[in-house]
């Protein structure tokens, strides 16, 4: 038990920080830091640069662009990336469908999809949730029926993040409605978004942004070789994916950056004879959040090290649960620091009110999703109480 970084890891940290802060265009990183919406091009540009240097999908198998890093190195990579404001590699590609194809796909599927998934030549979106299957994901109703070698897909997916940019969708579909349990009879399909019969409808969120969509399938024909793994075994791949998601999403580096930014902001906004950061209540709130973020980061380091056989430790639910709470608390704090300026909503530059302040409220509102999407906090508590504590309802 020791906390110092080995010389090797310290050098790794230096190298990677240097890379993130020089190789990725500053304009993109600044936009990300200010909390503005990134364009598709921003995200693609950034991921291509990362991928060219082997930094897009380090947790993948080495033969498909991964790195033989330790858990600690992966943490440093994530942490420095978030600290530098580098957009994360698109999670649907890097953390979701990629690892599933790598773990359960055939050699053909891997060769066909993984390179373009890493380079973001294919932009993936996720087709899991449905209007009546949210927390109860296994209650999904979108069907795929065999027609020769193909599948015919009908139904509706929702909450499909950035579906408007997507080239492909990975979807859970019901292939055996007769299965005795609803978790059985689900398969994992890869579907080209340009296939006839697919329609994408945007859902506007309360912050005004368009980041999620409904996706409708009307007799969509999907070639049989786009099934991942076994027929009717999709639920176990989905669980694998969701578990990875929990580990991947703990946004510690981002929370730390936000807190550092919050201090800069609070040191600029005037209050009385001084600035907001002089207010002991604000400084105390920051100190508390810093301590809590530290505990979260340490838990990431400790729990990630515990993962076994590629299956995430159920304790990773802590990361999702607490990570989303700290994100939300920090954005709430920034909105409070913005004070009356938070009443303006604008991404326009150059006015007397800085962008960080005029996006503070929509950003705060947007991140209310953090405790809902990707397995709500209630679901995470259920995993903890059921799987870890053995409390069965």
């Amino acid at each position, binding site marked *: 038990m020791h906390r110092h970084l080995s010389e090797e890891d310290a050098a790794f940290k230096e190298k990677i920080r240097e890379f993130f802060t020089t190789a990725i265009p500053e304009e993109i990183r600044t936009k990300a830091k200010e909390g503005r919406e990134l364009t598709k091009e921003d995200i693609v540009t950034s991921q291509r640069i990362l991928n060219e240097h082997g930094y897009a999908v380090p947790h993948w198998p080495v033969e498909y662009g991964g790195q033989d890093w330790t858990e600690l190195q992966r943490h440093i990579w994530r942490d420095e990336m978030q600290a530098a404001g580098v957009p994360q590699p698109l999670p649907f590609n890097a953390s979701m469908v990629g690892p599933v194809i790598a773990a359960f796909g055939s050699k053909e599927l891997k060769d066909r999809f993984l390179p373009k998934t890493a380079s973001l030549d294919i932009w993936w979106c996720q087709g899991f949730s449905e209007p009546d299957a949210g927390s109860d994901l296994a209650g999904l109703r979108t069907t795929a029926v065999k027609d020769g070698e193909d599948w015919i897909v009908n139904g509706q997916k929702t909450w499909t993040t950035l579906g408007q940019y997507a080239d492909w969708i990975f979807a859970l579909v019901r292939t055996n409605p007769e299965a005795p349990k609803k978790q059985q009879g689900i398969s994992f399909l890869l579907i080209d978004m340009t296939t006839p019969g697919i329609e994408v409808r945007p859902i506007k969120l309360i912050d005004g942004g368009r980041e999620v969509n409904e996706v409708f399938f009307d007799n969509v024909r999907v070639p049989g070789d786009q099934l991942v793994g076994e027929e009717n075994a999709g639920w176990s791949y989905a669980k694998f994916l969701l578990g990875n998601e929990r580990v991947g999403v703990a946004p510690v580096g981002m929370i730390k950056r936000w807190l550092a930014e919050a201090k800069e902001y609070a040191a*600029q906004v005037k209050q009385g004879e001084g600035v907001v950061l002089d207010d002991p209540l604000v400084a105390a709130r920051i100190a508390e959040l810093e301590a809590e973020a530290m505990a979260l980061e340490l838990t990431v380091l400790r729990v990630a090290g515990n993962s076994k056989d590629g299956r995430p430790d159920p304790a990773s639910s802590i990361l999702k649960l607490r990570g989303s709470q700290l994100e939300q608390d920090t954005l709430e704090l920034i909105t409070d620091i913005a*004070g009356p300026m938070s009443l303006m*909503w604008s991404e326009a530059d150059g006015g007397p009110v800085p962008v960080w302040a005029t996006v503070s409220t929509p950003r705060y509102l947007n991140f209310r999703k953090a405790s809902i999407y990707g397995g709500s906090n209630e679901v995470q508590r259920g995993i903890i109480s059921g799987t870890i504590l053995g409390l069965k309802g």
Partner: protein
Amino acid sequence: MDFTIDTEQKALRDAVRELAGSLADNAPSTGDVPVGPNEHDEKAWSALAEMGVLGLTVPEELGGMGATPVELMLAAQELGKARVQSALPEAVLAAALLAELGTEEQKALLEGVSAGETLIVPALHEPMCSFSLQAHDVTATESGDGWALSGTKAPVRYAAAADRLLVTARAGEQTGVFLIEGAQAEGDVVTFDGASAQLVGSLDGAADALQRAVNVATVALLAEALGAMEGALAMTTEYLKSRKQFGVPIMTFQTLTQRAADMYVSVELARSAVQFAAMVAAEDPGATDHIRRARVVVGKAGRHVGQEAIQLHGGIGMTAEYAVGHYTTRLTAIEHTLGDTRQTIGELARTVRDHGAVDVFA
């Protein structure tokens, strides 16, 4: 202490409820629904004027209804519940200042204000400043028989639609309130470069009058927040009853219903605080500490209820086409209008030594 409302007040409340409902029904609720701070809506504003809502707290002799903050509260609560955003709190603040400090000529504007023909809003906030009744970087200098203003105010809600602004500006060590006509607004930003303005009242009297006007406007804000919380709670319980997951209504999940109960507790405590604030302001608009306590209670309740309303809805609560998130948006804005919970707690903290127990009767 008496929390019951009389027949006339009930009639006002019912009338505003009906009006607010019809205004809400006219707003788009599918497709590209507007989000965030609203634009001034002339039609809605006229309808409110017609019902007498805009002149509620304006003295009768100045063309208003001569009612008290209690009536204002009843009206604002209904608007909040129906999600009708308007410049009402801002207009109330401006009217209170003019009625207390204005010359005869300035007071004469209030008839148009009550009638919805003249929109006068306050310009208090400055960029990169937390909320303060003192102006920071906006200055006023004497110029002929008037004053000249310089500096930037932002955000000034409804600036673009306003006929006149009441601007706080620094004159030497003091802050005065200035009436200005035809200021140019870019969105919510108003920049003055020697613009000519009238001093309202005196420099000496401005601070206290401003605090009183803020207190009355705060009653309107807190009441609107109460209405929003009521709406959010009602939608949430309705959703828990109707929405199914895992084959059963989600109200069978006790963790959700117990949290709905906590929301109810927050709403009811906020209701008491809001009604009290209105009664206090009706008696003495200068009873700042009590109004501040109400702001703290409502601010915390609003955050709790707004956040939980979305969380208990799940994804649907995040969408613009569904109303519940708009309540949360408005609650967040109210919390940062004319002061906020953080600053208010700090101000109350500075006075805790001045009394033993808080006395609600004094």
